[in-house]
């Protein structure tokens, strides 16, 4: 009881100053009573509806501030690349959602289940480093389906682009008729500084896939095979887990979601900016009584 004695003495000295009546306590006590009833109701509802998000909604007052919670969408690294919808049914008993989104930037901040929507990454070409085998448990979020039915059209790339014989394709880049939002001018494609163009990565024979340097078809899910063929050092770091993002388990050999190259970098603009610029989350609150000006140019300990 050292702490008790210490605090007792502390309180004797400063008690008069510190002792406060806490009006919040009464109200809190009432809240508790209310919430217990709700909790019971919620429990009953959950028993009835095992794995449905309606269990949470059955007790409407438990989450009054988020009536549209189920409709909320947020993105992962790049806006427009991987969007997730907030669902409230990961573990109905605890009532937490699959993801939590930032109200400021709309980015995913929190994962209820890091493997939600993932599938095994599959085989990785051997590379001769010691991490061979560490991808046995690797999962990725598949991108191929999303890219096939790209942006609103709900059509696969191959609908507009029937397979072409690579041999009959023109050898020179020409002005794009479509997709100028992706690449404004293929003659000035920044990726590779003019050394490569669309069909160095996109498979002319099957537009729903990519192609590697040897002419082998590569799925959009395995874009790292294409990227890695030029960026060997980064690819090696990525395989070791030193480059790029992973979520899941920290243990070596643990189940991890590997983030593939194009989940963080837009290959068409990567030379302008490695990462798409994003809006930052808001700054911390200023200490009470301080104004913005007090901190202009202040050093890191100015806020103490």
């Amino acid at each position, binding site marked *: 009881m050292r*702490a*008790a004695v*210490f*605090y*007792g003495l502390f309180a*004797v000295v400063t*008690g008069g100053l510190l*002792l406060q009546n*806490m009006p*919040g*306590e009464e109200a*809190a*006590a009432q*809240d*508790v009573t209310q*919430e217990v009833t709700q*909790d019971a109701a*919620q429990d009953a509802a959950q028993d009835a509806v095992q794995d449905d998000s309606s269990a949470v909604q059955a007790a409407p007052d438990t*989450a*009054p*501030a988020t009536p549209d919670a189920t409709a909320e969408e947020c993105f*992962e*690294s790049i806006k427009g690349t991987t969007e997730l919808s907030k669902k409230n049914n990961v573990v109905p*008993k*605890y*009532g*937490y959602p699959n993801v939590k989104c930032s109200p400021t930037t709309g*980015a*995913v*901040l*929190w994962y209820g289940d890091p493997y939600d929507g993932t599938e095994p990454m599959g085989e990785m070409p051997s590379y001769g480093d010691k*991490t061979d085998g*560490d991808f046995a448990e690797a999962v990725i979020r598949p991108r191929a389906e999303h890219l096939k039915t790209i942006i609103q059209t709900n059509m696969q790339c191959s609908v507009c682009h029937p397979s072409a014989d690579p041999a009959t394709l023109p050898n020179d880049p020409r002005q794009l008729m479509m997709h100028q939002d992706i690449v404004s001018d293929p003659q000035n494609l920044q990726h590779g500084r003019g050394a490569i163009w669309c069909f160095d990565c996109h498979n002319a024979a099957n537009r729903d896939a990519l192609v590697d340097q040897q002419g082998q078809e590569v799925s959009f899910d395995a874009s790292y095979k294409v990227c890695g063929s030029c960026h060997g050092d980064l690819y090696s770091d990525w395989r*070791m*887990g*030193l*480059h*790029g*993002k*992973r*979520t*899941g*388990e*920290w*243990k070596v050999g643990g189940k991890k979601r590997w983030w593939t190259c194009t989940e*963080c970098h837009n290959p068409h603009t990567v030379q302008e900016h490695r*990462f798409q*610029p*994003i*809006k*930052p*989350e*808001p*700054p*911390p609150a*200023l200490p009470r009584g301080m104004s913005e000006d007090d*901190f202009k*140019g202040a*050093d890191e300990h*100015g806020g103490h």
Partner: protein
Amino acid sequence: MSEDKRKSEMVKEQDDGKEQGNGKVKESRRDFLKKMGVAAAATVAAPAITSTTAEAVSLGETFQTHFELMSDAQKEKAIARLEKRYTEQFGKQTTVANTPAPDGVLFGYALNIAKCIGCRRCVEACVKENNQSRDPAIQWIRVLRMERGNDTFELENLHKGSPDSNSLGDYGIQSGGHADKHVGLSGAAEHYYEPEQVPEDNAIYFPVQCHQCEDPPCVKACPVRATFRDPNGIVVIDYNWCIGCRMCQLACPYWARRFNWGEPELPNEDMNPKTHYLGNRPRMRGVMEKCTFCLQRVREGRYPACVEACPVGARKFGNLLDPESEVRKVLATKKVFRFKEAFNTDPKFFYYMD
């Protein structure tokens, strides 16, 4: 602990509470001790105690010993008590885990400052995961913004903050500057930055959180050992044992500790109900808190929340004792430094560059 046993104990505690007249009043250890102290000073101790501690839950919490000294049975009891309280308070099923520290693990962290874009997603993710108070807002991670390059030795900056006429002569001796006005620009960092977009040109970002020092000054400074180092090298706090003296905050060279000046406000719908006794369970007013590398997650094998939130993968986490782990590979292959190395705190938090 089995459900039945836990339930029966809850019921018992509730009954105890009813005997005293009111089963709902919450009273924390420090409220009780405050009153006891004052009461003792006024020499009317006995009636004051009986009237203000009418509840078994608060009694149990008040006389709870240090977590490390508790027997298993005491721990179970304390945890059941907390689970019941949080479940009621937040209106959702809350667990307070007591997952033990895994064997043969020393947790380490590596952060790539060449990659960090200063987006503060890590900060927000930490708040959401660790049930930090939204108002007054508490954040365990700070992201500092610095100008690129070191301008200290440019003549123009050399005299920044110096008196106009230099009493020491014209030897370039720095005599100006004060706490809010640095001399020169070296090391100048700002954490209230708010640009439209990040990353900005000419800025680098430097996130700081608890460094989980091997030789932690905060632990040495704590008069009651409420903060201590867990077997995995994470410095933790027994919030129930913390007396709120803030000695650790003063001792920490990394500005890593936060104090709950007010009653923490945590919206029910935003509360994370998966908690750990030493990690992210809701705190009370008057206690210290800090980053624990998301102890509730990492003891179950998961990455900390900031690692999962960082959109650029600047954050790496793993077992320093395993040469194949991501942190060890960073240490082996990258340019690595530790913050404020001269303090000999031996952080397990490393900064690196490609």
